[in-house]
C-alpha cells in the first residue's frame, strides 16, 4: 500500500471551519474578565510641542480609569535598535517611543492613552482630552524635502547599503546605442488589513500575557520586554489568528507596550484596538517616493548600463526606505550599475515593510522602462527580457540556486495568448474600448533567518501527532501546510497530524516576513518530525520484541504510521504497537534549522512573469482590468490551493497599486489626506477580474530542506508594471506614476 505524499496536495485549510463559523478568535476577540478598554489620542499637529493637556472634562466622564500622558506614563527601560523582525531579535518599527516627552514629530503620534471600563466611555473620554500645541513648520512631501536629501550609509535596519556600484555606469551609459531617462513617482500606500492592530494585555503578578495581532510572537515578546525592562521569560505572547498584515504587523509598534503599561497602571486587563484612522499613523506605511532610471542598451536591446536612484522621506529617527533597488539590480545581466537611495527627514513615522517591500515599486520603474525600450527598438517585450536573461546573479556572479524564469515567460505567454498581441499601441479594440496587453518580469529574494528556527513534534500512542512552532497564521495557511509537512516526515496521513502555533511557549520561530515563513518553518517542522521518525525507528530496531529488531534503520520506511522494511513490507509494526508495548503515552523530538553555509554561494530568488489585459474607455479614461495571468516558480509548492490563493492575492495587490491605492500628505497641515477605507481605495470585488496562476515547477536543493522559495510577495512584483504597460499598449500613453488614474489617460 502506498500513501501519496501530503505535501503538494491541494488540501482545504485546516482552520477553515473556525474561520467560516466565527470560531476563529483574533486578538481583539479575547475577553478576559474585568477587562478595560484603552483608546489612543493622536497629535493633531505634525511638528512641535505639546504645551498642555487638559484632562479635567475627560476625567469627569463616566467610567474613566486612567489618562496616561508624557507627564505620568512611566519611561521606557531601553529603546532597542530597528532590526527587521526576520533577524529574530527585538524589532521595533521605529526607534521612537511616544509619550516620553512633549515633542511632536508626526501627526497622529500618540499623546495620551485613555482607559475606561467600556469602549464607548473610553472613546468618549478620549474625545474630551484637550491638547494644546506649539506648532513648528513641518516637512512631509517629496516636493518639500527634495533639497535636503542625503545618502545614508545604510537603510532597512542596516542591511542594505545606501549606494551600490558595479562597473562604471557613466562610461556604460556613454557607450550605449540607446538611452532612456525616466522618472517615476509613487503615492504612499497603507497596508490596511481588515483587522486593525490590536493588543489585549493581562498581568498576573509580574507575568505579562499579550494577545497581539503580529507576524511574529517572539518579535512582540522581545520588543515589549526590552521596552518595559522585563525578562522575556516574564512575557508570553499569543496570536492564534491574525486578520491580515501585509507587513504592518511585521514590526512591533508602540501599542502592545502601551497596552501593557495601561493594564499595569489600572490593575486590570486592557484591550487596545487601533481605529481604522489610526491604522494610517501607527503601523508604518509604504513611503511616497520618486525613482529615476537611466538605462543604456545596445541596438539589440541588451542592457549595458543602469542607474537607479530613489528619493523618499524617512522619519526623524531612522534611515528607512523600502529596498526598491534590490531585485531591479539583480534581474538582468548588466555590466555597469549604480543604485543610490536618497532620504530626507520628514514629519512622519518610520515607513515600513509593505507587501513586496521595495520590489513592487522598484520593479515598476525598471519594467516600465524595459517596456519603453522594447517599444523604441521594436522588439517584443518577452524577447527583450530573454535577451537580457542572466545566468548568474549579476550582483555577485554566483549561480542561481534555481530559476525557472524562462519557463515563466514561456508558460505565462502561452496561457495568456501573448502571440495575439499586435505590437503597435491602439491596435486592439473591442467596440469603443481600447484593449491593451502588457507584461513584466517578477523576482523576489529568498531570505533566510539569522538564527535557528525550531519546532517540536510529538507522537501519541494512538498514532496521532502534534507539531508545534511559535508562528502565527495571518492568512498564509501555515497551519495547513505544516500539517502536511509533518505528515510526510512522520509517515502519517495528514488527517492524523495537527499543527499548533501562535504562542511564545512553543519552540521559537522568527517573524514570518519577507516570504521566508514557508521555507524556514517547513525546514524546522520537517527536521523535528524526521528526527522523531528516526528516533522511533531506532527504538524499534533496538527492541527485541519488535518485528524490526536488528534491522538496518536505513532499510525501514514508514507509511500510514506503520514502520516496515522497504523490501519486505510485511515485516513491521505500527508506531502505536511500539509505544504501547513500552508504556510510552507519547514520544517527542525537537528540531532546529539554519540556512546552510553553502547557500551563501548562490543567488537565491523566486522568479515569475506577469501578463495583463486592460480595456480603456478613451473618452472617459475609465480602466477595466480584464484578466491577469501570472506564472511563478516558487520552488516546492507545499499546497497548491493555498499557494495559488496567496499568489492571486498578490497580483490583485498589484492591481490596487497600479490603479487605486494612494495617500498624500497635505503639505500645509502635514497630515494624510485619506484616513479610511472610504477614501483610501483598495480593490473591491467588482475591481477584481478572474486571475490565472501558472505554477512552474523548479527543484531547489539549496534554499532549505524542502526547496520552498515562498509565495507571499512574488505575486505583486511586476503586476503593476504589466498593467501600466498594457495601458501604454491600449492608449499609447506612458504613465510613469502610481497609481494611474483617470486624468492620466484623458
Amino acid at each position, binding site marked *: 500500500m502506498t500513501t501519496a505524499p501530503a505535501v503538494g496536495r491541494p488540501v*482545504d*485549510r485546516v*482552520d*477553515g*471551519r*473556525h*474561520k*467560516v*463559523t*466565527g*470560531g*476563529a*478568535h*483574533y486578538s*481583539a*476577540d479575547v*475577553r478576559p474578565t474585568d477587562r478595560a478598554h484603552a483608546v489612543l489620542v493622536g497629535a493633531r499637529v505634525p511638528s512641535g510641542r505639546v504645551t498642555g493637556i487638559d484632562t479635567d472634562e475627560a476625567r469627569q466622564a463616566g467610567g474613566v480609569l486612567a489618562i496616561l500622558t508624557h507627564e505620568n506614563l512611566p519611561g521606557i527601560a531601553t529603546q532597542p535598535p530597528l532590526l527587521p523582525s526576520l533577524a529574530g531579535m527585538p524589532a521595533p518599527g521605529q526607534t521612537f517611543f511616544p509619550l516620553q516627552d512633549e515633542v511632536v514629530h508626526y501627526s497622529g503620534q500618540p499623546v495620551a492613552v485613555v482607559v475606561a471600563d*467600556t*469602549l*464607548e466611555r473610553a472613546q468618549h473620554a478620549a474625545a474630551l482630552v484637550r491638547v494644546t500645541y506649539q506648532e513648528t513648520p513641518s516637512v512631509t512631501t517629496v516636493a518639500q524635502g527634495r533639497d535636503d536629501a542625503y545618502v545614508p550609509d545604510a537603510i532597512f535596519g542596516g542591511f542594505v547599503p545606501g549606494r551600490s556600484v558595479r562597473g562604471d555606469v557613466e562610461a556604460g551609459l556613454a557607450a550605449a546605442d540607446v538611452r532612456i531617462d525616466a522618472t517615476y513617482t509613487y503615492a504612499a500606500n497603507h*497596508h490596511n*488589513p*481588515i*483587522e*486593525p492592530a490590536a493588543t489585549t494585555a493581562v498581568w498576573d503578578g509580574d507575568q505579562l500575557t499579550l494577545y497581539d495581532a503580529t507576524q511574529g510572537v517572539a518579535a512582540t515578546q522581545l520588543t515589549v520586554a526590552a521596552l518595559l525592562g522585563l525578562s522575556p521569560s516574564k512575557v508570553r505572547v499569543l496570536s492564534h*489568528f*491574525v*486578520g*491580515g498584515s*501585509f507587513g504592518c504587523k511585521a514590526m512591533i509598534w508602540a501599542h502592545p507596550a502601551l497596552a501593557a503599561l495601561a493594564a499595569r497602571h489600572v490593575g486590570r486587563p486592557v484591550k487596545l*484596538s487601533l*481605529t*481604522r484612522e489610526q491604522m494610517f499613523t501607527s503601523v508604518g506605511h509604504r513611503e511616497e517616493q520618486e525613482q529615476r532610471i537611466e538605462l543604456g542598451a545596445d541596438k539589440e536591446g541588451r542592457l549595458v548600463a543602469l542607474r537607479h536612484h530613489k528619493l523618499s522621506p524617512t522619519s526623524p529617527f531612522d534611515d528607512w526606505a523600502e529596498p526598491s533597488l534590490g531585485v531591479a539590480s539583480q534581474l538582468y545581466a548588466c555590466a555597469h550599475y549604480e543604485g543610490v537611495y536618497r532620504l530626507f527627514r520628514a514629519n512622519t513615522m518610520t515607513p515600513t515593510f509593505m507587501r513586496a517591500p521595495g520590489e513592487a515599486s522598484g520593479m515598476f520603474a525598471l519594467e516600465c522602462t524595459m517596456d519603453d525600450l522594447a517599444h523604441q527598438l521594436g522588439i517584443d517585450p518577452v524577447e527583450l527580457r530573454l535577451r537580457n536573461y542572466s545566468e548568474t546573479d549579476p550582483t555577485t556572479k554566483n549561480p542561481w540556486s534555481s530559476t525557472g524564469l524562462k519557463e515563466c515567460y514561456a508558460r505565462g505567454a502561452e496561457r495568456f495568448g501573448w502571440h495575439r498581441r499586435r505590437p503597435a499601441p491602439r491596435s486592439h479594440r473591442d467596440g469603443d474600448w481600447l484593449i491593451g496587453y502588457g507584461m513584466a518580469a517578477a523576482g523576489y529574494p529568498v531570505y533566510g533567518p539569522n538564527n535557528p528556527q525550531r519546532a517540536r513534534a510529538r507522537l501519541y500512542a494512538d498514532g496521532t501527532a502534534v507539531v508545534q512552532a511559535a508562528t502565527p497564521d*495571518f*492568512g*498564509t*495557511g501555515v497551519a495547513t501546510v505544516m500539517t502536511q509537512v509533518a505528515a510526510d516526515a512522520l509517515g502519517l496521513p495528514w488527517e492524523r497530524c495537527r499543527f499548533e502555533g501562535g504562542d511564545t511557549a512553543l519552540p521559537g520561530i522568527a517573524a514570518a516576513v519577507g516570504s521566508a515563513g514557508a521555507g524556514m518553518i517547513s525546514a524546522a517542522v520537517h527536521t523535528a518530525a524526521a528526527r522523531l521518525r528516526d528516533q522511533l525507528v531506532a527504538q524499534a530496531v533496538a527492541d527485541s520484541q519488535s518485528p524490526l529488531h536488528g534491522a538496518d534503520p536505513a532499510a525501514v520506511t514508514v507509511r500510514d504510521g506503520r514502520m516496515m522494511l522497504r523490501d519486505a513490507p510485511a515485516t513491521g509494526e505500527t508506531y502505536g504497537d511500539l509505544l504501547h508495548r513500552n508504556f510510552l503515552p507519547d514520544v517527542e523530538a525537537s528540531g532546529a534549522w539554519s540556512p546552510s553555509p553553502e547557500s551563501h554561494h548562490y543567488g537565491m530568488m523566486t522568479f515569475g512573469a506577469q501578463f495583463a489585459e486592460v480595456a480603456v474607455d478613451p473618452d472617459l479614461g475609465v480602466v477595466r482590468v480584464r484578466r491577469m495571468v501570472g506564472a511563478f516558480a516558487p520552488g516546492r509548492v507545499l499546497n497548491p*490551493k*493555498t499557494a*495559488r*490563493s*496567496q499568489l*492571486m*492575492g498578490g497580483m*490583485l*495587490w498589484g492591481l*490596487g497599486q497600479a490603479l487605486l491605492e494612494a495617500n498624500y500628505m497635505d503639505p500645509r497641515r502635514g497630515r494624510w489626506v485619506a484616513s*479610511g*477605507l*472610504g477614501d483610501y481605495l*483598495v*480593490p*473591491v*470585488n*467588482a*475591481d*477584481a*477580474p*478572474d*486571475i490565472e496562476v501558472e505554477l512552474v515547477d523548479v527543484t531547489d536543493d539549496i534554499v532549505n530542506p524542502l526547496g520552498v522559495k515562498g509565495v507571499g510577495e512574488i505575486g505583486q512584483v511586476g503586476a503593476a508594471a504589466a498593467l501600466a504597460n498594457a495601458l501604454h499598449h491600449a492608449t499609447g500613453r506612458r504613465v510613469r506614476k502610481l497609481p494611474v488614474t483617470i486624468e492620466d489617460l484623458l
Partner: protein
Amino acid sequence: MSAPDIPSRAPARAVLPERGPEPVRITLTVNGVDRAVEVEPRVSLLDALRERLDLTGAKKGCDQGTCGACTVWVDGRRVLACLTLAITCEGREVTTIEGLAEGDELHAMQSAFIEQDAFQCGYCTPGQIMSAVALLKEGHASDDREIAEWMSGNICRCAAYPHIRAAIRTVRDRA
C-alpha cells in the same frame, strides 16, 4: 460600488419613551435566542454583540461602514452592525455568523467558502458569508458581474474575490 442594504425605515410605531444616556436594559433576539443586555443607547449592535454577548464572529474592521466585516442580518436583511445602534434592534431578529450552521452541519455557503478557498486570513469572512447568503436570497447572483457588484460592500484585503464569486456560484448552482 454598492453598499449592502441598510434596513428600510421601521414601520410606523407608537412613540417610544426616551431612554438613556445611562445604560438601559434591552432584549435582543440573536440567532433565535432572547438575550437581555445593559447598554447605553450609543452602543452599536456590533459592540453589543462583541463586547457584551460574547459573539465575536462579526468583526470590527473600520467602525465606519466602509469594510463590511461586521455584516449581520436584522430581520433577514444584511446590515452593517457598526452603523446600527443595538437599541434599535429590540423586537427584531438578529442573525450572526454563529447562527448560520445547523449544529455541526455547516451552511452550504460556509462549506463552499472552505472548498473554494474563498479566504485567507479569515477576518472578513463572517461578513462575506452573511452577505453572500443574503445575496442569493435577494436574487443578486445571476452572473459574476452582478455578484461582484453586490458583494463590493465587503472588502477582502487578502483579495480572495474570484474565489468568493466561485463559492457563491457553487451554492447558487446547487440550489
